[in-house]
């Protein structure tokens, strides 16, 4: 499959189309709106299901196989805040707090970007290690912690923010789901796969419809913040994405796994990081980091990034 065909394949999946539909609905000022409870319910379902599937896979994967990918993912998590922080200071010319806030977002991971990449790679037909969700859990937290440390030297609400990160609902659901899957194994999977596995992509489609609406309502903020933020969000995604693909191949994840790790590395958090940053760095401007993460980097990855990282993985490792 060539790059254009990949792009087409990605653009015409129900998930990406539903995202566009959401954007269109908001731009047309439709009264379509998801109740907050539906949004929360879908995100609880998706996060737990990702974790659970990862756990079940892990239950029949030898530790030796996971070790290297896990270490590389951890390294990615610890490293990524630095380029983000520097780029924010130098290129966006924002203050310490805003830079650290952006670093926290680009140091963590977007579970939905991960899922979109997974779906894409499966549609392409590549083999894929089963433990990828484990890596998502590993990538989520460390970057946020590093970024907060970058901003604060002394006291403040650091402790509270750390607690918020570690016990935040996305971490609890991902890691908790992982444990439940790990302990209940294939036996458990058989009982609940008609709920957590089969309808999963459809639920994701509905979630992306809502996410499209949320992102579109950020577009006006984008106009205020300016074009530099677009460059920042895309540039960082490309750099982190390439790095992720490279490390993924090095870690032996194969083309499919490397493409997914690339998409994970390229993504920016919009669940765990905002909550932590709002507490630890209240002076940072939410408009900046939410717009960058949600209205620039997320759609870029969803639409162009994922096929790109895949092409890169084929090029370097195929």
């Amino acid at each position, binding site marked *: 499959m060539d790059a254009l065909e990949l792009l087409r394949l990605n653009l015409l999946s129900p998930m990406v189309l539903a995202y566009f539909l959401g954007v269109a609905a908001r731009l047309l000022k439709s009264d379509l709106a*998801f109740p907050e409870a539906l949004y929360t319910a879908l995100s609880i379902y998706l996060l737990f299901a990702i974790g659970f599937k990862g756990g079940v896979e892990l239950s029949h994967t030898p530790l030796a196989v996971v070790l290297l990918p896990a270490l590389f993912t951890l390294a990615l998590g610890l490293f990524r805040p630095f380029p983000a922080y520097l780029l924010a200071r130098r290129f966006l010319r924002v203050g310490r707090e805003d830079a650290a806030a952006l670093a926290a977002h680009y140091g963590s991971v977007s579970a939905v970007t991960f899922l979109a990449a997974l779906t894409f790679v499966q549609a392409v037909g590549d083999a894929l290690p089963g433990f990828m969700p484990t890596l998502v859990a590993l990538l989520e937290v460390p970057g946020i912690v590093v970024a907060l440390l970058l901003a604060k030297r002394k006291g403040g609400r650091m402790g509270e923010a750390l607690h918020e990160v570690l016990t935040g609902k996305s971490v609890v659901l991902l890691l908790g789901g992982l444990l439940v899957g790990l302990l209940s194994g294939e036996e458990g999977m058989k009982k609940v796969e008609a709920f957590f596995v089969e309808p999963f992509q459809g639920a994701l489609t509905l979630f992306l419809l*809502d996410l499209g*609406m949320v992102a579109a309502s950020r577009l006006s903020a984008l106009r205020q913040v300016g074009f530099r933020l677009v460059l920042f969000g895309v540039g960082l995604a490309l750099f982190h994405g390439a790095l992720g693909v490279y490390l993924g191949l090095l870690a032996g994840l194969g083309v499919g796994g490397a493409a997914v790790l690339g998409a994970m590395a390229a993504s920016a958090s919009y669940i765990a990081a905002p909550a932590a940053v709002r507490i630890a760095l209240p*002076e940072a401007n939410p408009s900046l980091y939410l717009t960058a993460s949600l209205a620039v980097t997320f759609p870029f990855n969803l639409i162009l990034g994922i096929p790109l990282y895949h092409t890169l993985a084929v090029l370097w490792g195929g």
Partner: protein
Amino acid sequence: MDLVPLKLVTIVAESLLEKRLVEEVKRLGAKGYTITPARGEGSRGLRSVDWEGQNIRLETIVSEEVALRILQRLQEEYFPHYAVIAYVENVWVVRGEKYV
């Protein structure tokens, strides 16, 4: 009937602050509080239902002294960085002695 004149303090704030605000008002002397979900718009723009988390509307019935303490604290600690609005009004409360 015993109606006691007291102060009703209302705080509208981003919902992320809920846990902290509840601790504050209790620490400063409130005997109880009521929270309703809310959304709104102010100087910091629209606080939508979806993303940045919605607002909460916290009400607490307290003595004048406690009311002033709460508002003072909000002004110093929360107004600079967070989306908050706070006001006080006069109410007459059934069995009001419970709340002071």
